[in-house]
């Protein structure tokens, strides 16, 4: 294990125009660790992931990936460094087939274990439907394709934004059941979830965001239900 964290955020403030969405957020994640970020709607979870992925740039604070700053980097540069985002709502490319969606995920040509055939091994249903346009997939299959697309860039850190959103519980369980196989390939994950039970099961460490601030953090096993609900709702 390296002694420095894979990703470290120090006192990050992020804004949408004049509206401040993140206040003094500090967070760290080690190699091969799964971290969950939970919180209510509008707590700043997606803002946090977008800031890390380079889709928006925090006004203050430092973000270090493997010791190097990524604060000002554009999204396409951040991918090349090894951070991939599974965006909220899947956002597959509708004009592309399932396979083309996966191939474009591998556009950055980073070396690593993930190839088209490995993704198909992980999600066999995608192989059957590879030539269909992406919108022809069911919601769960689209989520698998979105995860597969992110894996194709062979990231060292995978950011998952609300992968359970809008999916049937059985499908959510199915997808979460495959996350350990992904982590076993040696990557780290940040899971943003509203589904707290799912998040606590999957993650070793939990951060709870409330109105843009980190209200609670700790090992998933050690946090009590009461402390989480206090941090979640602010009561």
């Amino acid at each position, binding site marked *: 294990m390296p002694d420095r964290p894979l990703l470290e955020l120090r006192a990050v403030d992020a804004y949408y125009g004049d509206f401040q969405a993140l206040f003094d957020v500090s967070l760290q994640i080690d190699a091969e660790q799964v971290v969950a970020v939970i919180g209510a709607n509008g707590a700043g979870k997606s803002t946090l992931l977008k800031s890390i992925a380079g889709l928006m740039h925090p006004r203050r604070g430092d973000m270090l990936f493997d010791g190097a700053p990524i604060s000002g980097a554009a999204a396409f540069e951040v991918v090349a460094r090894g951070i991939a985002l599974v965006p909220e709502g899947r956002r597959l490319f509708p004009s592309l087939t399932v396979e083309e969606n996966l191939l*474009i995920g591998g556009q*950055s040509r980073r070396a690593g274990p993930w190839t088209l055939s490995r993704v198909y091994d992980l999600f066999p249903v995608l192989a059957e439907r590879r030539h269909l346009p992406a919108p022809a997939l069911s919601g769960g299959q689209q989520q698998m394709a979105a995860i597969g697309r992110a894996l194709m860039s062979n990231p060292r850190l995978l950011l998952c934004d609300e992968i359970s959103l809008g999916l049937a519980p059985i499908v959510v369980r199915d997808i979460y059941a495959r996350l350990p196989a992904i982590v076993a390939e040696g990557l780290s994950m940040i899971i943003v979830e509203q589904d707290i039970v799912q998040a606590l099961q999957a993650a070793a460490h939990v951060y709870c965001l409330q109105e843009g601030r980190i209200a609670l953090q700790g090992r998933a096993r050690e946090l009590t239900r009461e402390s989480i609900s206090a941090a979640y709702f602010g009561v």
Partner: protein
Amino acid sequence: MTAMEWLNVILQGVLIGGLYAMFAAGLSLIFGVMRLVNIAHGDLIVLAAYVALMVTQTLGIDPLTSLLLVTPIMAVIGYVLQRGLLNRTLGDDLLPPLLVTFGLSIIIQNGLLELFTADSRKLQAGSIEIETFQLMQGVWVGLLPLIQFFVAVAVIAALQALFYRTALGRAFRATSDDQAVAQLMGLDTRHVFAMAMALSLAVIAIAGVFLAVRANFDPAIGPARLIFGFEAVIIGGLGNMWGTLAGGVILGVSQAIGAQIDPGWQLLAGHIVFLAILALRPQGLFPKVSG
């Protein structure tokens, strides 16, 4: 008029339609990838004609050979134009790129006027300009229009293959779908847009050279070529390259038939058919098909 004469007229219309399809293809490509309406498109076609004029005069080569130089020159101009200027105008608002390309159109026209005067020019392609052969009894086809048409078909086929068979085409389609997510895939959209403009101007180069071999040109004829391009795109349906070819052919045939009825009706007939299709089938005859 005999049936043979009509057949002749329609055939000439089809062949000129290939040229219109080439005017349209670059326009459609740019709008499809980055929602940019390039008002300077016609003037860039004329610019390509003048570049070809300089190349042919300086090196003493024939116009079709000059394409080997003119095409890459225009592609580089396209790349630089996009990275240096047009990328800055792109955003949620469609108006800034419209205004900037409108200004660009005026700059190109007046720049060409300063450099080359308002005199009409023409590229000389030698004997292939006048060579014809008989297709059947009473139907004659010029070699140059025929070459022009087959080049147009080849250009459309190449664009179609590039869009659906290559990584660059995949990047074009993905960027067109969702720019933010395209960036998450590691695509620098500024570069993707510049490649699209380079490709558009490469097609413009081919169209410009054929235009300049076929007829006289001067710095002011660009806007009319832009209109023909627009009309072909709308008739064929946005986002479908073969539809664009069909749109160009329909426009060409309409103009040829109009001119046959009354020489003053050539352009009018094209505009009327365009307006009729816009009114009856605003999505075009062959709208975008998925997959």
